[in-house]
């Protein structure tokens, strides 16, 4: 057996991939993530409000999701509810973070791999040079501006507080945001799917993913040529904590809607090769992320593709690309509702209690999937803080009974590049995983 140890470019943070070859086929794969930063330890003994500043620093790309998970955990522990206005604004900023992540991931992290297969794609997707590479960054930075309109800055804002938000947005912010959303939709229609809105919506309703043009169409064509439509499949069990636009539930042979039972989520001990701990639901590994959410919300294009190719590389990627549209549509509805409650106070609790005791959970959907924070507070101070990240679900290591989700997806592949692409389709975030 040949063992190959690869360093991975274009992931968030550092990671290595170990491939075990036999007769030209990958027989086993290990995702190795080192260097733990120890953020959970840093939180213990601090006032619970400090978590709102420190946990976003777990990740520079989905820090906002950590902020919202943190504030929800605190609210749960303290028995506080946010105002509707704050809830809507938080939904919007959290969703915008997901959007910028999706755009960057597809154009900056995924598509450049195809250059190695087809040189002609350089002009489009080459880092720092490609035309589309630059348009993607430009639109992503417009989206982050949308977050900053409400939260003050992105990355690393701390504007969500128990009971609400610190800012007091007005119609000015809403109209600016609407403008940004229109730009994003324009980008999506003209570049990502290459269709007029009416035509795209029709395809969406019919579930006819084969008609997609633009970069998504090109992606499908390349996948078809490379055999990636069927490759990179894992357990075909998917889970979503709910929130944003999609309901919670899981897929195991069929979609089951309903709240996740926190006591069924288990974090196991990490094996020696990884700094990340495996996570199991009802004792089993599940994949989390856009594909899970799109199945929960019943996107017909994704459903029909999933029926045909299960949880393959191409389905996983396309679900994420199409989620851009689902989220943009959800934000528009939240803006409409927000207009009606804009006069409300930004927070139900202007002054946070300095002393409080309780245990709480915050479950949110980050770009890459379900993120869970658990806080235990006594007399205002953090006794214990635990974070389960999406990358732990998808890229976490094996346990006694199961390979990790991404590990399983790489078994049976015949090319090193394919293995890296499949791994990247889960959006490897080692910074999150090794909080």
């Amino acid at each position, binding site marked *: 057996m040949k063992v190959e140890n690869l*360093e991975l470019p274009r992931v968030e943070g550092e990671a290595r991939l170990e491939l075990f070859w036999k007769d030209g086929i990958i027989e086993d794969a290990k995702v190795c993530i080192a260097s733990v930063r120890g*953020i959970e330890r840093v939180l213990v003994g601090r006032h619970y*409000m400090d978590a709102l*500043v420190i946990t976003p620093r777990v990740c520079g790309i989905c820090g906002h999701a950590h902020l919202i998970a943190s504030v929800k955990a605190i609210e749960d522990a303290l028995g506080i509810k946010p105002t509707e206005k704050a809830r809507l604004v938080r939904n919007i900023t959290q969703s915008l973070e997901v959007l910028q992540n999706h755009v960057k991931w597809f154009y900056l992290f995924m598509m450049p791999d195809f250059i190695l297969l087809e040189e002609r794609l350089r002009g489009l997707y080459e880092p720092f040079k490609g035309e589309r590479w630059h348009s993607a*960054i430009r639109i992503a930075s417009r989206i982050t501006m949308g*977050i900053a309109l409400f*939260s003050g800055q992105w990355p690393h*804002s701390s504007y969500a507080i128990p009971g609400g938000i610190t800012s007091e947005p007005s119609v000015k912010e809403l109209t600016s945001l609407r403008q940004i959303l229109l730009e994003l939709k324009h980008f999506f229609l003209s570049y990502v799917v290459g269709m007029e809105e009416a035509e795209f919506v029709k395809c969406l309703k019919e579930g006819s993913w084969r008609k997609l043009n633009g970069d998504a169409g090109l992606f499908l064509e390349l996948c078809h040529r490379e055999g990636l439509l069927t490759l990179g499949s894992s357990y075909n069990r998917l889970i979503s904590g709910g929130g944003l636009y999609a309901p919670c539930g899981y897929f195991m042979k069929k979609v089951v809607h309903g709240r996740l039972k926190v006591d069924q989520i288990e974090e196991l001990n990490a094996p020696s090769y990884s700094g990340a701990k495996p996570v199991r639901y009802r004792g089993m590994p599940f994949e989390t992320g856009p594909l899970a959410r799109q199945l929960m919300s019943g996107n017909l294009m994704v459903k029909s593709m999933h029926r045909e190719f299960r949880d393959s590389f191409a389905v996983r990627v396309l679900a994420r690309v199409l989620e851009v549209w689902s989220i943009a549509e959800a934000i528009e509805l939240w803006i409409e509702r927000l207009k009606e409650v804009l006069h409300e106070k930004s927070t139900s609790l202007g002054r946070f209690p300095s002393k409080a005791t309780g245990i709480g959970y915050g479950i949110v959907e980050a770009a890459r999937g379900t993120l869970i924070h658990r806080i235990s507070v006594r007399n205002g101070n953090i006794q214990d803080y635990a974070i389960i990240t999406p990358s732990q679900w998808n890229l976490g290591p094996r346990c006694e009974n199961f390979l990790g989700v991404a590990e399983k997806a790489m078994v049976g592949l015949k090319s090193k590049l394919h293995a890296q692409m499949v791994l990247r389709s889960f959006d490897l975030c080692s910074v999150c995983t090794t909080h």
Partner: protein
Amino acid sequence: MRVFWLQRLTCCGNTHSFLNYESLHILSKRLEFLYHPSLSLKAQEEAVEELIKSGEGIDILIVEGAVRTDEVETRELCKIAKYVIAVGNCAVYGNIPALADETVCGLSYRFKERKGLLDEGFKSRSGMPVINLSGCPAHPEWIVGTMLMLAEGIKPELDQWGRPKEFYSSLTHWGCTRNEYFEWKVEAEELGSKRGCLFYHFGCRGPLSYSSCNTILWNGVSSKTRAGTPCFGCTEYDFPRLGLWETKQYAGIPAELPIGVSKRGYIMLSGIAKMFAPERLKGEG
């Protein structure tokens, strides 16, 4: 200018802050980005090997993230660079990763001590010490602004922490839209409002931190204090302090006063300011 971007213990926040820079497409025509771990096609080991083989060196080495005290490769790369930029609070002071691990530090500092990876007298090939761009994260205009100065042949003047004065010589307080409340000592009693100063109750470090967050706005539109969030002083060596949302007070006076203000002066002025504060600044308005 050939730019080589290195990541160590990081959350990648500075990379994504940098990607917010509005005209990256023009910037990448002026600067040649040899390598960036999150963006380039090749892997870091390969990129470093190629770089050393080429013998051409680096014009600008950017280090993002905290480092370990025994990192040989990072030290070697710093030596062959014309300019070294530590971007973000982790690379400058060690920051959060250094809180729980004694072997973690910044390039020059470990919090306020000169116990970083590089020797105290370190100079890059141009004769400049490490250029520190503190902040969690650093603002894209500070990162790009510094690179552009270097590209124009301008060596930025640095403060005592090795930070370009151009971006770090004024307090975060400057340009804060709540300054009038500060001057008249009108305190924010609650969070979630555009009104009132956050310095008195909510731990705002604006008058105690050096940054241009309120003059070079974030994402072109806002800042923490404009969004009603106190400044947490993330450009300073002591970020993140304990009790980030509270102002420690002794007998009703903040334990730490704005930089350069005497306790006596503060007591006298704040009493008078409060007494004569304009009515329009009080209440919900």
